[in-house]
């Protein structure tokens, strides 16, 4: 690093500019990973925390399976006989509007219908669990953040079903809407959608059968998706994720080209120095090691500084604006930093090729 360090010090203005650009890209990369994770959380945390491994939807339906699929809850018994399936239970999923009975506060909710006592029924963080024969519900964090608490009552629009809040759970959102766990029968009345006592047929409906374990042969006719595969049927999920992926992809490509272009220009600027080292008998390996060390010093320090700043920003946003879908997850941040550094080095490889192609004869100077 004899030359690399001295050049860094000598041309610190140029390198600082470059470092600031890379650092800002790292800030943006960290914000994007935070946003991507926040969006996933906000979009499908109810599916992520679901203890099932697979969902069996109605055969033949297409598009958004969660809103279009309709299965008979009684099929759960047949599913639990299928080899590979440890447990099976009906699952309902519907979006609704509701008002808090006393304050009149409007809320959008995603109602999940589960059999109380089944493996799908969540353990409440506070309050009581779901109970068959009641309309008591568990509300997720998004609603408690909005001030809904145990003892409140949510009145669902149209069906006018009254849902007393009996307990709370953590993150359980679906399609950016707050999740509410209700007993299956209650869910079926909401799904029916009209006030008064619904007909008997309304109680033969669920969205899917939730399975614990991958079904083997002999399964009933159905569209079986793993829970992860079902994320794509959550409203907006696929579009959001592909948008985020595309933005991130372009960010990495841009940073690769910025770093590559900088080091190509820089290497052209120091062509005389390279020719001199070659003429003095320095090996190509010596120059390449020196240059790579320089690239790494710039990239690592700028990326670390930028990522730290980005993480600080994410933490600040999370504490000041809890409604914003953003999450600080170390894994993706480290991945983003590694990618920025690796792609930067890859970009700089173009510059290294200029080193190997520099003719030591150039050092003989202007008279040639």
């Amino acid at each position, binding site marked *: 690093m*004899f030359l690399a360090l*001295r050049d860094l010090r*000598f041309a610190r203005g140029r390198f600082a500019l470059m470092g600031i650009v890379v650092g800002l890209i790292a800030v943006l990369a960290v914000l994007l990973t935070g946003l991507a994770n926040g969006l996933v959380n906000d979009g499908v945390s109810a599916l992520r925390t679901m203890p099932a491994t697979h969902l069996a939807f109605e055969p033949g339906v297409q598009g958004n399976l969660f809103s279009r699929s309709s299965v008979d809850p009684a099929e759960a018994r047949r599913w639990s006989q299928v080899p590979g399936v440890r447990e099976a239970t009906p699952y309902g999923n519907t979006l609704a509007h509701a008002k808090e009975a006393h304050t009149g506060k409007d809320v959008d909710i995603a109602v999940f219908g589960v059999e109380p006592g089944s493996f799908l029924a969540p353990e409440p963080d506070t309050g009581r669990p779901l109970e068959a024969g009641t309309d008591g519900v568990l509300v997720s964090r998004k609603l408690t953040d909005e001030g809904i608490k145990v003892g409140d009552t949510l009145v669902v629009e149209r069906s006018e079903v009254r849902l007393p809040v009996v307990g709370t759970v953590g993150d359980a959102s679906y399609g950016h809407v707050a999740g509410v766990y209700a007993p299956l029968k209650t869910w079926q009345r909401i799904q029916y959608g009209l006030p008064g006592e619904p007909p008997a047929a309304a109680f033969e409906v669920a969205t899917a059968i939730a399975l614990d374990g991958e079904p083997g042969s002999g399964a009933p006719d159905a569209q079986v998706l793993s829970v992860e595969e079902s994320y794509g049927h959550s409203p907006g999920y696929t579009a959001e994720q592909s948008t985020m992926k595309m933005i991130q992809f372009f960010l990495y490509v841009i940073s690769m080209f910025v770093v590559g272009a900088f080091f190509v220009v820089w290497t052209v600027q120091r062509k005389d120095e390279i020719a*001199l080292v070659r003429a003095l008998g320095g090996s190509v390996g010596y120059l390449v090691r020196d240059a790579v060390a320089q690239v790494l010093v710039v990239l690592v320090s700028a990326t670390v500084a930028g990522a730290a700043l980005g993480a600080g920003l994410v933490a600040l946003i999370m504490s000041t604006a809890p409604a914003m879908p953003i999450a600080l997850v170390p894994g993706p941040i480290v991945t983003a930093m590694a990618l920025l550094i690796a792609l930067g080095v890859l970009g700089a490889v173009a510059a290294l090729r200029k080193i190997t192609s520099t003719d030591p004869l150039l050092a*003989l100077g202007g008279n040639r």
Partner: protein
Amino acid sequence: MTATVTTTGLALDGVTLEYGSGDTLVTALDEVTLTVEPGQFVAVVGPSGSGKSSLLAVAGALIHPTRGRVRIADVEVSGTKARDLAELRRTRIGYVFQSGNLPASLPVRDQLLLVPHLSGRITADARAYADELLEAVGLTAKAGRRPHELSGGERQRVGLARALMNRPAVLLADEPTAALDRRRAREIVALLAEQSHRRGAATVMVTHDTELLDSADRVVHMRDGRLE
């Protein structure tokens, strides 16, 4: 390695250097034979394009001749691989470049220390020798300066000190005085002669300036790639 010539300095034997081929063929050196003993200071004069730089490039192991043999300090250069040529340059050859050719980011002392660093690491011995050479060229007081803070003559003296850093068997200087006024030019040439005598390097200096030849032990003239 055949020892027909008993010198440990520099020996060129029937060296021809051609650039290009066919219609664009240029014969830069034509059957050049030249022997320089250790400690001998030879000046090469000739018009522009006569092949002086080409002569130094061949003598400095920067390029292989098309034909003929080059011996540097008893190492036969012909047939040596590029990597070994680089090692030869690192260990046996000192080159003073026309423009000084000093990396802008290196202070004067580091210009000299770059040479041992290329060979591995900078020993205490190398540091002491660098200081001794800076003393010899009168730049001790400016050891921490960067090239842009030096005059043209001072830069040439740094270039000379750097060329001596690896205790070369062969010292080559390509128009080392081109950018200087008469007085500075004389100083540099005198220094070159003194260093070559004192340190026993076979020295070749290329110049346009026929008034700088009095310190040379021998003067050869070059025309159209031939020595006269």
